[in-house]
């Protein structure tokens, strides 16, 4: 690997240039990526079983794993080269153009804010379910989660991601403990996969159900690309970003496989497909109070870690002034806060997850085209790359094809919503291109010290 070229987001306050702090290492990158995603094992992935059966949930776990491996490979190359806060926003600005960057920023803010909303709803619902108190609602827990985590993010990135590392690690270890506690090598004692997933019910809707399951299969890994948002705050982007992202992806593939195996072996697919707490339920069904309580706490920690990481990433995608003391993107954090609070109270978990997935898939479609343009405009050898991903263009083609399948899957469940959101992006793009763009300083949009792109 060679050193990446870096740019910095700075704010000038009273004549002093204030920038984000370079204080993060690979462990923080891992904590950011896995922290955002791991909640998907605690809720969300199991709705894939509802859409297509237990076996469909496993098939999409693998195929969507391939989609995200492509995302991680592509992202590692582009981000370790365009090492700037904003992640895919900064990539779009330098490779495709200002309008695309504007859209990508919206994809990111939508995806992360709705994911944060889902996390807060899950946390509130989990506490209410555990308390079992008549009349207790999740509202105060949701509001407290969003506000406290926004405050933590406001105060500093190092503490934010240190917290994320610890709570993500605890949540992850709880899945490993559950897995080894149920004697996974023996069927019949605790796990009863053969009796719960039978030839008659493995794919209750046939292959159309497998395709439909892609929608929630995304939830196994949604947000791993968020590691790129730390690009401007890691000490060595060329090393930390690819290592952190790839390690995160491997971690998640293992967690997803363990989660599916334990849950599908402990509960019928019809129940697995509708429960909001598959791992907590799995803990209950083992009959061990220790495992039940461990998985309850882990569900809360996973939701907290994810919401925490989402606030971090949404703020970097929105991009604004740096706080003079805490060196955080404080205005962005405050801007996104009311939006998250508002949707936490009007959307339910299923819908918030779908909003997030929709924006994520639009973003992955962009990434598959973006890497092709990146390689064409700056072929290998023309600029220094932090990391060069192998097998190009295969990951881009795989990613693009799987995005198309996922759009079809979303159509099968939320077609009207997909059309409404695309129309929104279309209209807002027209507004930007024909009105807002006139206020943009052209030359300032390209800050990398690269040669002129080929073909321009």
């Amino acid at each position: 690997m060679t050193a990446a070229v870096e740019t910095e987001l700075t704010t000038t306050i009273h004549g002093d240039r204030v920038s984000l702090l370079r204080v993060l290492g690979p462990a923080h990158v891992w904590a950011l990526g896995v922290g955002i995603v791991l909640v998907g094992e605690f809720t969300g992935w199991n709705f894939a079983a509802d859409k297509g059966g237990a076996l469909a949930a496993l098939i999409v776990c693998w195929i969507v794993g391939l989609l995200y491996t492509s995302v991680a490979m592509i992202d590692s190359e582009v981000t370790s080269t365009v090492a700037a806060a904003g992640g895919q926003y900064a990539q779009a600005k330098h490779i495709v153009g200002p309008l695309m960057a504007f859209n990508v920023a919206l994809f990111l803010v939508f995806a992360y804010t709705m994911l944060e909303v889902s996390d807060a709803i899950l946390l509130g619902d989990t506490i209410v379910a555990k308390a079992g108190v008549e009349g207790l609602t999740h509202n105060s827990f949701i509001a407290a989660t969003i506000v406290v985590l926004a405050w933590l993010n406001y105060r500093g990135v190092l503490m934010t991601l240190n917290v994320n590392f610890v709570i993500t690690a605890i949540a992850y270890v709880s899945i490993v403990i559950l897995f080894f506690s149920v004697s996974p090598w023996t069927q019949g004692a605790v796990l009863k996969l053969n009796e719960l997933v039978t030839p008659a019910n493995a794919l209750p809707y046939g292959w159309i159900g497998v395709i439909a399951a892609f929608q929630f299969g995304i939830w196994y890994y949604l947000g791993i690309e968020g590691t790129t948002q730390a690009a401007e705050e890691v000490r060595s982007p060329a090393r930390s970003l690819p290592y952190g992202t790839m390690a995160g992806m491997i971690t998640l593939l293992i967690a997803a496989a363990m989660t599916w195996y334990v849950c599908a072996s402990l509960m019928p697919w019809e129940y697995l497909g509708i429960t909001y707490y598959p791992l907590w339920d799995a803990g209950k069904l083992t009959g061990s109070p220790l495992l039940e309580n461990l998985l309850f706490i882990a569900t809360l920690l996973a939701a907290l870690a994810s919401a925490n990481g989402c606030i971090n990433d949404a703020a970097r995608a929105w991009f604004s002034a740096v706080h003079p003391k805490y060196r955080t993107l404080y205005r962005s954090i405050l801007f996104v806060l009311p939006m998250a609070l508002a949707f936490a109270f009007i959307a339910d978990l299923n819908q918030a997850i779908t909003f997030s997935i929709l924006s994520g898939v639009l973003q992955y479609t962009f990434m598959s085209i973006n890497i092709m343009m990146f390689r064409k405009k700056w072929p290998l050898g023309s600029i220094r790359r932090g990391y060069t991903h192998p097998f190009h263009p295969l990951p881009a083609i795989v990613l693009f094809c799987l995005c198309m399948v996922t759009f079809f899957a979303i159509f099968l469940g939320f077609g009207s919503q997909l059309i409404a959101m695309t129309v929104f992006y279309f209209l807002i793009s027209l507004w930007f291109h024909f009105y807002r763009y006139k206020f943009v300083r052209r030359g300032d949009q390209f800050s990398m010290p690269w040669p002129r792109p080929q073909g321009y």
Partner: protein
Amino acid sequence: MSRYVPPEQSKAGQIFDIAIVVVAIFVALWLPLKLGLAGAAKSIDPLDAKTWDALGQNATMASIWEKLGYTPETAHDIIQNRFHYIIDWPTLIIMAVVLVAYFVFLFRASDREYREVINEKFEDK
């Protein structure tokens, strides 16, 4: 190529533009919820005989349902609540056209803007 100097925008104008984006985000997310367009086509296929056997549950499944606190009567609406995947071709075609049109516009308009950025950035080189 001469350097493009954007017009100065007033503070009020900037706040108005931010408000437009925020309102548009809210409308895009909230409207489908309000109009009841969110959610998949799922409905209950009712059964007369509400037994574990009729619900297609073997002894192991039935014991787990009972451990979770369900009876055949209370589990009926969960087990029989099924998706009915019907491809609505006109909606699918509209969705495909909207998506393709959006991405084509996005890349073409971005490319026009990008050429201006590159020309100004590299004008002296």
